[in-house]
């Protein structure tokens, strides 16, 4: 099994003197990581337990475990359904050293691996608001043109979207700007392509993701609504693995390359090709394309330490030359280095990262130029350790953020820049007391900056408490309470937020204090023979939030850029999931309300408010070895600001007489009207195939199968009398094809 150089199975000669620890029963801890022997990815929720004294634990999301050993000899078993178990003999104190265990996959037909992981998670995690979906489940679900992580999130309970040609999402009444998106712990502030049509995540490079909604724990700061953390694969070291795919939108390649000294390397990329294909078929020069590139190198330095170096680059390019030159490009680029070290009952993780989000606009060959780079750095350290049954985590992070905005409009220059430091310190302690699982957390976050000769700083303590009470081995009730702050705000108008490809982020200081909300969550969750279920009620009091000021004064940006407001969101979400057997699926429903009020406005619904939504997805084997996945989504209409009256605007015409000029429109209160309900059915048919040593999947997908016209916007056409109500629809029926091959 595994790599003989790693201390996977330690069979030591019994020449080591037995210590008096047996009598004194002083606690010792053995720690290490558990990995998949084929992919080398860390395995979360692996059961780790001692045979003789029946104590146990499980690995965390990074495959790390710490287990208390107080008697010798002892056998430690590593067990996870779908893998061959491994056993480690600890004969004496001298055998206590960091270990890396490799588990070999063993195909299981009756029960999927995810069930075992879920059972462990159910008992180990408090989990208010957190939901996971296996990545292969996301890949099976019908998607628009290709699989996308952020679009898949939209099917989860409590998650809504305003328009279906965007991958942006709102979580339990929160704004899209209040969601934190992380890739291997690195925040991505604009993770979108093509008008937020797609995210920058390539599903082939991901091994796992975690999504936390209301009541998320103290590990995460600088976010108000939710946290989505994606983890990249590790990369195999047995031989080169290649997978490619060709779809209607992009083509992709992903390589896992073994390197010397048990180092793994993954490299991948994708590019859209409408700009190459369309001119060859028509006379039209398609002006837009995007690409992603990423790579990660991971090397074990010793049995107890590991280093990872990763980088990524995303770009969107819009190039329109004739008759008027428009050049726009934007995207992220970044690199990170992580060092992980564990010993006995402690694990240390150090991360350093740099990220740059760049936007540049050039109109008319320099007539208007805008350049706006946002550079962020990150230095983060976390320590996990166990004492007396407590699982503790301490963390510290420093994020320097440099914002710059430079524009030149026909020679008129405008230059704004600022360096802000966001600092966070947190602690989490978790312990089981009988049938109670208690997690106590707290954060201390603050920011510091100098602007125009003045120094600004703020510091906020944020307590976070999460509890779980087990009614039985399969049912628990849970609750969470916490305060949250966010030190950045996206400068985007409310009307455009869902369609913006990217947002300009600004630090909050001076007159604009950090955004703030309070979360209260109660609920219940449970395991059933075929899956799991959860029901949660939440309340979010958003005591401070911001949006772009429509009346901003360019000569006084720091005072007029944003307007402050309040919000409140409450509701309940529920889901039940079946992932045992050949037919799998999930039903989720959400009820909720999100209201807000800004400046002098009356209280109104927020644009992402959906009173009721439901999502049903089913995946089943079908004829000729295909797998058919169907998804149906329903939601009550989102609010919009619409026309409630029309009147004539008059003027004195060139004849000197009173004449009709044009119609003027009287609007409802902000978001005072509702669009009609939204519903859509999507279907995906997938067929696996093999060609020699290669295997692949052929996938046909149809979005909006029955072509229901979901309304994006209404407007009145006053060229008719009486005026006619017109609408712009969202996605019509849209088929797509994708072929992926793996070697």
């Amino acid at each position, binding site marked *: 099994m595994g790599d003989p150089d790693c201390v996977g199975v330690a069979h030591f000669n019994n020449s080591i003197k037995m210590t008096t620890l047996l009598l004194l029963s002083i606690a010792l801890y053995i720690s290490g990581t558990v990995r998949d022997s084929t992919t080398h990815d860390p395995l979360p929720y692996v059961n780790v337990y001692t045979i003789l004294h029946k104590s146990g634990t499980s690995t965390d999301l990074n495959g790390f475990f710490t287990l208390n050993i107080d008697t010798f000899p002892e056998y430690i078993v590593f067990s996870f359904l779908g893998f061959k178990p491994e056993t480690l003999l600890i004969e004496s104190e001298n055998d206590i050293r960091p270990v890396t265990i490799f588990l070999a996959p063993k195909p299981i037909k009756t029960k999927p691996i995810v069930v075992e992981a879920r059972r462990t998670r159910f008992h180990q995690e408090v989990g208010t608001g957190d939901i996971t979906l296996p990545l292969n489940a996301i890949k099976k679900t019908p998607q628009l043109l290709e699989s996308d992580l952020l679009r898949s999130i939209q099917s989860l309970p409590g998650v809504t979207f305003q328009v279906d040609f965007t991958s942006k999402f709102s979580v339990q009444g929160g704004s899209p700007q209040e969601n934190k998106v992380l890739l291997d712990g690195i925040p991505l502030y604009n993770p979108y392509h093509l008008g937020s049509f797609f995210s920058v995540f390539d599903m082939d490079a991901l091994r796992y993701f975690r999504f936390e909604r209301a009541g998320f724990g103290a590990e995460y700061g600088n976010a108000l609504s939710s946290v989505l953390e994606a983890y990249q694969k590790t990369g195999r070291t047995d031989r080169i693995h290649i997978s490619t795919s060709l779809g209607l939108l992009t083509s992709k390649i992903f390589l896992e390359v073994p390197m010397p000294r048990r180092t793994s390397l993954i490299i991948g990329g994708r590019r859209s090709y409408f700009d190459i294909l369309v001119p060859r078929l028509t006379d039209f020069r398609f002006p837009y394309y995007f690409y992603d590139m990423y790579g990660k190198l991971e090397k074990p330095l010793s049995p107890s330490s590991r280093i990872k170096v990763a980088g990524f680059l995303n770009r969107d390019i819009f190039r329109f030359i004739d008759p008027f030159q428009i050049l726009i490009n934007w995207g992220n680029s970044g690199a990170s280095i992580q060092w992980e070290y564990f010993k006995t009952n402690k694990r240390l993780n150090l991360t350093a990262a740099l990220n740059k989000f760049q936007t540049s606009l050039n109109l008319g060959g320099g007539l208007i130029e805008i350049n706006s780079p946002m550079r962020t750095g990150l230095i983060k350290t976390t320590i996990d350790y166990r004492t007396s049954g407590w699982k503790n985590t301490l963390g510290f992070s420093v994020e320097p953020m440099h914002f710059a905005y430079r524009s030149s409009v026909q020679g008129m220059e405008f230059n704004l820049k600022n360096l802000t430091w966001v600092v966070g310190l947190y602690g989490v302690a978790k312990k089981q007391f009988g049938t109670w699982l208690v997690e106590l957390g707290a954060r201390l976050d603050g920011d510091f900056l100098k602007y125009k000769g003045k120094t600004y700083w703020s510091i906020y303590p944020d307590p976070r408490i999460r509890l779980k009470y087990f009614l039985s081995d399969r049912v628990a009730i849970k609750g969470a309470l916490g305060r949250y702050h966010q030190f950045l705000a996206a400068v985007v108008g409310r009307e455009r937020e869902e369609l913006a490809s990217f947002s300009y982020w600004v630090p909050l200081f001076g007159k604009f204090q950090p955004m703030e909300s309070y979360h209260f969550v109660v609920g219940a969750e449970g395991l059933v023979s075929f899956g799991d279920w959860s029901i949660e009620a939440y309340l979010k009091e958003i005591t401070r939030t911001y949006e772009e000021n429509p009346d901003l004064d360019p000569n006084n940006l720091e005072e007029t850029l944003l307007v402050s407001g309040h919000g409140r969101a409450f509701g309940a979400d529920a889901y039940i999931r079946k992932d045992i057997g050949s037919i799998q699926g999930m039903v989720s429903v959400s009820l909720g309300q999100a209201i807000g009020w800004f400046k002098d406005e009356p209280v109104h619904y927020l644009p992402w408010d959906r009173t009721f939504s439901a999502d049903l997805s089913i995946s089943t084997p079908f004829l000729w070895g295909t797998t058919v996945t169907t998804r149906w989504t329903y939601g009550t209409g989102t609010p919009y600001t619409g026309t409630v009256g029309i009147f*004539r605007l008059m003027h004195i015409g060139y004849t000197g007489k009173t004449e009709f000029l044009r119609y003027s429109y009287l609007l409802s209160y902000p978001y005072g009207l509702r669009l009609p309900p939204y519903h859509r059915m999507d279907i995906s048919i997938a067929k696996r195939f093999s060609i020699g040593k290669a295997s692949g999947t052929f996938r046909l997908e149809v979005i909006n199968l029955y072509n229901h016209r979901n309304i994006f916007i209404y407007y009145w056409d006053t060229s008719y009398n009486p005026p006619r109500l017109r609408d712009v629809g969202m996605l019509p029926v849209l088929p797509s094809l994708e072929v992926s091959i793996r070697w």
Partner: protein
Amino acid sequence: MVKRVLMFVFLAFYPLNCIKVSGTPNYPDYNVFALLRLGVDTQEVFVDHVYDPGDTILMGVNSASVSIIAPDTQITYEPHVSDSLVLFIAPSGGWLQPEHEYTLSVEIPGSELIEAKTKVPGDFEIVYPQNHDTVDTNTALVWTSSRYAYYYIVSVYPVDSFLNKPPFYIPLLTRDTLLDRFVYPFLFQGTGDYLVRVEAIDSSYFRYISYEEGNIDNAMGVFGGTVVKELTVHYEGGMPYENKGKTSNKKY
């Protein structure tokens, strides 16, 4: 136990649904456009509905009673159909004076009285050029200041456009009383006769044309006062960009 928890959750959160969320503001039912224009032959008022979207747009409200209350008199307007609009018209006369205040009154059966007040700006004169002068793009347009005027609208139209299709023109809004070059923007479209109109407007009309703001009680629209001065000039020359004149240094 689970049922009790769920009931607790429901009862705990139910009272939160007590914040009233606004839907539609109350808008007036009628729309009135009324200007008192000193210097023209007739005065016009337009009374119309505010329509629900989808309603048929009518010619106006011909059942209204429209009157202007002057300092010593009251002028009643009569309905006329003009270009598919119902306009209420009254002849100009001695009752309309600069720097005087007037009250508009519109009565419509079944609705509240519609009222507004305005003050007509003071009189002024176009000093240069004179009527029937020949001008070019270096000619300055100069007028005296009008008391209580908030802005001036300057419009230039080809005279023969009144016989043909509507002309291309861009009215200029200015607070100055001087246009030092007669070129803003594309005022002249070739050799010919042009009507130059300078209209001193009050703040109410300015806010209406700039921001669609009104000043009428119980109605949308505006009641404003203006003073109109016109003259005809002859322009010799090609399009404005063909002339390379210099800025006039005449002082008035």
